[in-house]
């Protein structure tokens, strides 16, 4: 029983650390540090640097241009990425549709799509949820009717994250309505976002941000060869995507980094003023989250260790999403509380790169409320935490 890295793993760690401190675009890291809002172009440049290093397909097998890394290497990569305060990799292409295409797609689809996903030349978005289908995803109503060599799409997708940047969408649509179970008759389709008949409406989230959208499909025609796998099997493919081993789902490294930051912020405020008078209470609140995070770190390491020895992840892996997002939100809340009055001004333009003035407060303080509001989404997306509990109840507890 031990948790030390081998020599080669330590070497790898050094290599990753050097990559983020040298080859990765340093101005993007600086923006993160200064609390400047990132543009699409910043994300793309960062991901391209990772791609050029050969590391874009973190979870992908080597034959499709992936890293072929062990579970421990992936863990090290995400740890270093968080320590460098690097923006997270936009998941829709690299973590979501990529694995579906290389697992179920045709040879032609692999050749057409995988290179653009790896290089971040093409931005993807996810068309799953609909106005009437949230947690009950299989109740989706979007239609895709076969018409010769084409499918004709009609319906609405919603909560579509960053669809305004996207070149492509992968979506689930109903190709057959005459089915015994609602999970049947659903197909997995790839749609170019500039196809005639697609229109977008922004949905503004509680923090005033335009991150998600409604996407309307009005007789949108797509070539039939943009169907992935077999018609009617989309639910199976889509589930693979949801249950696909999503390394880093717990976000342990990011939370560790933020918690350390929070502790030094508290110390700074104690030295220079602005610390809570009830500082012992606050230090205890931080410690409470820190202890939960220590637990989660080891829960994740246990999962990695069993994957590394070729075993399936144990039942403990199922709690990573729930506990990970609870901790993430608890940290968001601590930042908000620590900021005091500094979190209250709502001046979003101060976060723009070309803002002529000074930010009103330390960027962590100024962002605190907005981030706290924004990340209420964490316990809702990716299968809400209540859905996760249903899954654990069924799969692990057998009730």
């Amino acid at each position, binding site marked *: 029983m031990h948790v030390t890295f081998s020599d080669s793993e330590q070497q790898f760690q050094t290599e990753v650390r050097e990559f983020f401190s040298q080859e990765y675009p340093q101005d993007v890291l600086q923006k993160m540090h200064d609390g400047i809002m990132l543009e699409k172009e910043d994300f793309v440049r960062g991901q391209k640097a990772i791609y050029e290093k050969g590391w874009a397909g973190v979870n992908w097998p080597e034959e499709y241009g992936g890293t072929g890394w062990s579970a421990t290497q992936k863990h090290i990569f995400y740890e270093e990425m968080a320590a460098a305060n690097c923006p997270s990799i936009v998941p829709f292409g690299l973590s979501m549709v990529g694995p579906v295409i290389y697992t179920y797609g045709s040879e032609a689809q692999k050749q057409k799509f995988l290179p653009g996903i790896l290089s971040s030349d093409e931005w993807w978005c996810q068309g799953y949820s609909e106005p009437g289908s949230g947690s009950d995803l299989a109740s989706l109503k979007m239609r895709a009717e076969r018409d010769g060599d084409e499918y004709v799409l009609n319906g609405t997708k919603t909560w579509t994250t960053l669809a305004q940047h996207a070149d492509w969408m992968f979506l689930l649509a109903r190709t057959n309505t005459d089915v015994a179970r609602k999970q049947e008759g659903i197909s997995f389709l790839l749609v170019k976002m500039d196809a005639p008949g697609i229109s977008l409406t922004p949905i503004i989230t509680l923090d005033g941000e335009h991150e998600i959208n409604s996407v309307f499909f009005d007789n949108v025609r797509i070539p039939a060869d943009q169907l992935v796998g077999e018609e009617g099997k989309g639910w199976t493919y889509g589930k693979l995507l949801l249950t696909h081993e999503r390394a880093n789902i717990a976000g342990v490294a990011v939370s560790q980094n933020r918690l350390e930051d929070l502790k030094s912020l508290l110390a700074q405020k104690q030295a220079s003023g602005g610390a809570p008078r009830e500082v012992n209470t606050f230090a205890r609140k931080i410690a409470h989250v820190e202890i939960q995070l220590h637990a989660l770190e080891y829960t994740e390491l246990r999962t990695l260790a069993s994957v590394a*020895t070729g075993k399936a992840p144990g039942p403990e892996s199922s709690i990573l999403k729930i506990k990970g997002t609870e901790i993430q939100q608890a940290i968001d809340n601590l930042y908000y509380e620590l900021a005091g009055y500094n979190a209250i001004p709502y001046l979003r333009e101060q976060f723009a790169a070309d803002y002529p003035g000074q930010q009103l407060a330390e960027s962590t303080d100024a962002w605190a409320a907005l981030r706290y509001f924004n990340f209420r989404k964490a316990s809702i997306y990716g299968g809400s935490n209540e859905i996760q509990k249903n899954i654990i109840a069924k799969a692990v507890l057998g*009730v």
Partner: protein
Amino acid sequence: MDFSLNDDQTMLRDSIVQYLGKSYAFEKRMEVVDSSAGFSRDKWADFAELGWLSLPFEEQLDGFGGGPIEMMLLMQELGKGLVIEPYLATVVLGGGCLARGNNEKLRGSLIAKVMAGEIHLALAYAEAQSRFELAHVECRATEASDGLLLDGEKIVVMNGAAADYLVVSARTSGEQDDPNGITLFCIEAGRQGIERSSYKTVDGMEAAHIRFEGVRVDASDQISARDEGLAILENVIRDATLAVCSEALGIMEALTYKTIEYTKNRQQFGVPLSSFQALQHRMVEMFMELEQSRSLLLRAVIKCHEKAPDRAAAIAALKYYIGTAGRKLGEEAVQLHGGMGVTYEMDIAHYFKRLTVIDTLFGNSDYQMNRFVAAA
């Protein structure tokens, strides 16, 4: 990175599981709890034979030479089995003080007897005013004509009545809460001037209130350097904290799975209780707390095994979490068992009571939180 057990560790665990499964029925345990004996001498002899009583002692003393991992494995199973025999008091606390102490004579002779199952020990450290502070010692050993005289009182001495020898922390110099000036003595429990009144504890074990009045002690009874006993005491309490957290984890595991099983079998409104989502989610919470606790236990055990500099903080974090999550889990197990959960007859209640006591032992969650923050 590897969380698996080696062959020896696997064998050890399997043999413990096998023995307890075969020879430690809950009903028999309750007969012992309800008797005046307090624990079973026969079972204790089995423990000696199985080598459990030798587990933490070094090979030079003819012990098994087990470390924190082996102790975790044993204590977890003792927890699951609701074992009532005073392993913690005799082996971990009393034996631990002797093993870590500097009195070679007592160390050799008494540990041999402990391992053979011939004697019992108790550690008398807590006092009415001390709460969880080990350095808060009023019990005093003062110079007399030919040695020292020990005066004072110790509370809730686990296994205090059955113990043949008592390890006592006493002040030999300094003020009431001075970390220096504490000396550890190991003396026969029958020595003149010692008065023990024993009682049952709420978790079915036994403890004693012990009064020392002019008890003669001398250098041959000392198991720490004069005035320097606190470091030994702290280390032993740290080992014991890890041990009761392991025990707690075994209990939490038993409670979680027994609760799931119960709700699957118990029918209400024509369906099993387990079909109600409100209850399912509560059991998922129990499961998550169990696994998070297990992670913190493994973390602390590995840090102790590797002698990591932050191991004391890791143990404080673990005890904080087990204290809080464990008690919550115990309450949930009782609640989900409904009326059955509050009966004396069901094992659920006895697991719950032991978990509740474990939170208090060696400092409850609030206390551990302070230790953790201070160490950070």
